[in-house]
């Protein structure tokens, strides 16, 4: 990755037009919900705008100039996203988002390879998107879903993993947990899963935006992620798949663009990745995803990771000063083991009330179960508030969060 120059978060913030607008109450926008979706830099917005203004055309078929331009930009974006996670462009399938990527594997590979009595192994802290598709696959096939347990800090308990992996057909695991931000020890788990003969699927929705990801080094079979959490637009995501698997597995959706020849009674399919991209693709958003990757690569994932560690460490210190008001932070509390995510509660105040009061100060946090209802139930939390950090967040944002929490404590007389 080319590291052009070190930039400050303050300079980076200026590239995001949304931060130039005050909230309706005239407050500075303090955006601490990047784990839900990230903000977009001007370059990504421009990429969308330029495509629609200058070369909007369908891809892979037009012979005219703007169609060729669109096809070239679309495939160049694929190549940039592929390079970003160290795979070949032919191993990178466009999808709508992480959820669709995981569903593609569960339907296409799962339907052909999972049978009654097989085991699908997940962990206890998966997002619903890496749980429900496997539950449905298990129901369709008669397979069983099992879970790698977590301890009270939200860390995986790996003592019994080899037994759990016995006869396991699929291991599907989040690279970084979305509720507690825990970075999972994939270096330890993936070799053991592969040795046990399991297919390894990684949900990278919370990792690809924040950590350098190298799918070749991870040695996973599939890696799923979304553009909108990494400065790109909504509606476009990607799935890395090992080339041999993409070639051997059946298609997911079918129709135009994914075929080679069609007769009334039979069809031969296009080669990967197009075999998995039925119908007109999300051309504009794929191209803008490429621009988001350019932006991230320019700043450097190493810088982003270190910046998030600094901000998370500072936030932990600032929030500790609110312990007297009943503020509790959940999870590992060690920025070396987590992405830039902090889940917390304030005394007996419900997380939604906390989020509503923070909103009056322009501070955006997520509140609720974070699409991890089984995890919340297991940990005995009804709901939590979650602040998540990204490259554009500053210490000033953390100070605003702490001040807004003090206001909430005051209102609720804590």
């Amino acid at each position, binding site marked *: 990755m080319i590291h052009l120059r070190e930039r400050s978060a303050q300079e980076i913030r200026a590239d995001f037009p949304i931060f130039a607008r005050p909230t309706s109450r005239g407050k500075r926008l303090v955006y601490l919900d990047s784990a839900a979706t990230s903000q977009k830099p001007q370059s990504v917005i421009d990429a969308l705008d330029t495509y629609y203004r200058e070369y909007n055309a369908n891809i892979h078929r037009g012979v005219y100039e703007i169609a060729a331009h669109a096809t070239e930009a679309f495939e160049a974006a694929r190549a940039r996203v592929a390079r970003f996670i160290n795979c070949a462009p032919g191993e990178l399938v466009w999808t709508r988002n992480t959820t669709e990527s995981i569903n593609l594997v569960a339907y296409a590979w799962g339907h052909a390879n999972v049978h009654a009595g097989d085991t699908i192994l997940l962990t206890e802290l998966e997002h619903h998107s890496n749980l429900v598709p496997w539950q449905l696959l298990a129901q369709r096939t008669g397979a069983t879903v099992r879970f790698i347990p977590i301890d009270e800090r939200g860390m995986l308990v790996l003592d019994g993993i080899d037994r759990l992996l016995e006869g396991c057909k699929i291991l599907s695991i989040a690279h970084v947990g979305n509720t507690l931000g825990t970075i999972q020890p994939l270096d330890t788990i993936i070799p053991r899963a592969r040795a046990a003969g399991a297919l390894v699927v990684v949900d990278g929705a919370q990792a690809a935006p924040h950590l350098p990801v190298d799918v070749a080094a991870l040695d996973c079979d599939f890696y799923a992620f979304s553009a909108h959490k990494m400065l790109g637009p909504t509606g476009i995501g990607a799935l890395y798949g090992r080339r041999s698997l993409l070639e051997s597995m059946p298609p997911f959706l079918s129709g135009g663009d994914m075929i080679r020849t069609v007769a009334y009674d039979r069809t031969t399919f296009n080669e990967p990745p197009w075999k998995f991209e039925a119908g007109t693709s999300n051309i504009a958003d794929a191209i803008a995803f490429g621009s988001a990757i350019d932006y991230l690569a320019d700043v450097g994932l190493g810088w982003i990771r270190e910046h998030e560690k600094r901000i998370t460490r500072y936030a932990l210190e600032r929030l500790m000063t609110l312990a007297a008001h009943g503020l509790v932070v959940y999870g590992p509390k060690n920025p070396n083991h987590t992405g830039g995510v902090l889940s917390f509660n304030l005394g007996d105040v419900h997380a*939604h*009330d906390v989020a509503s*009061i923070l909103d009056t100060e322009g501070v955006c946090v997520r509140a609720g179960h974070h699409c991890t209802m089984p995890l919340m139930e297991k940990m005995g939390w009804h*709901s939590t508030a979650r602040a998540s950090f990204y490259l554009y967040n500053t210490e000033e944002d953390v100070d605003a969060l702490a001040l807004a929490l003090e206001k909430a404590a005051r209102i609720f007389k804590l």
Partner: protein
Amino acid sequence: MEDFYRDYILDHYRNPRNFGHLENPTVSAEELNPLCGDVIRMELRVDGDGIVRDVRFSGKGCAISQASASMLTESAIGMPLEAVARLSKDVVLENVGIGISPTRMKCAMLGLRVLKTAAIGSLAAWPDEE
């Protein structure tokens, strides 16, 4: 929104009225707010004349849903069951006395939806969507 958290709202949140369960409720219902996973249960005792004599609510949720439900139980006691079934969102808005932001309207209306569901005998519409 900050105006919402007035003393009487916080009082109903921390000291909910008619909280708990009835021995043999005549009708009851339970419902989830899909936004946050909050759950409220309402149990009603109705006498032979069709008058609601007692109400208990239970569940866990934010100050807005809990205080609204708590105040609603006080409104419903003594009302004909038929009138409870026809209650509009105004009863909640009058009880809380101040504006609720659109994003939190579902929280405020959860108790009313559950109460009406119990009175009607089938799932009531979200009162803010009627």
